[in-house]
């Protein structure tokens, strides 16, 4: 299936969990947050939330800013 992560389209396995996606992309967990289709995914649900075709995923972290 196709999903969009941080604006980039990618092909991933059907039913991939948020947990598996983060592992696949080697994203650090500390101070990271995830939203799927504009809704925030709580950390506790990473393993249980299965992504679906066409999902838009945002993965954010603190960056330099004022």
């Amino acid at each position: 299936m196709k999903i969009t992560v941080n604006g980039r389209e990618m092909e991933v396995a059907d039913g991939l969990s948020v947990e598996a996606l983060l592992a696949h992309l080697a994203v650090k967990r500390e101070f990271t947050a995830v939203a799927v289709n504009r809704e925030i995914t709580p950390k506790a649900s990473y393993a249980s939330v299965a992504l679906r075709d066409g999902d838009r995923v945002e993965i954010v972290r603190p960056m330099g800013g004022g």
Partner: protein
Amino acid sequence: MHDTNLVLGGKDFTSRLIVGTGKYSTNEIMRQAHEESGAEIVTVAVRRVSLPGKGESILDFIDTKRFTLLPNTAGCYTADEAVRTAYLAREAGLGEMVKLEVIGDARTLFPDVQGLLEATKTLAREGFVVMPYTNDDPIIAKRLEDAGAACVMPLGAPIGSGLGIRNPYNIKIILETVSVPVIVDAGVGTASDAAIAMELGCDGVLMNTAIAGARDAVAMARAMRLAVEAGRLASKAGRIGKKLYATASSPLEGLPDWTS
């Protein structure tokens, strides 16, 4: 002289200087500047991670046990975007404090005060410690306080402009209008600007570019720390009144007679 702490969301801070993490030439320079600034709070933006998730992170250069991270909602042009960003920051583990920005225009980066007020109401109700970046407008400052803001942060001048405190009289009126802390956010160019803000009676100063963009950011960070401390002390000490004519500092009596 004994001084009180800056209290935000029930937390005590001894430093009254809040500094940013953006635009430093290197992360190591940023780390040293933070050290010299004496700041206890540093602002961060919340942005998409680069994929795949490798590379240097500013978080490798900030001791999060020592510094309180203050996420901002920079780049948000609506209350909805700002509120969502604040929630994301909280979910990321950045805590309840948020430097709330709702930007009205890309050229000036002036705040959209209508959106700001709306987002402040929502986030304060949800338990956030809302620190809104606002105009130097006492009416809006009062409304933000009434909406539950933990402090108000009027701009001294446009973000990154280095123009200093353009309307000290409005800042003074804001100080008389609200009872929450007043922190000048944006516009500071050099140390005297920070000192002026504090001499006016402000509770703190927030800056990024003035330090990060200085030729020697680490030295400027120290200058800003001293300026904020000096301004605070001068404000507490109570300055003399301004007079048009001279008042002699030396006694007028007892002058020797040099007439021949």
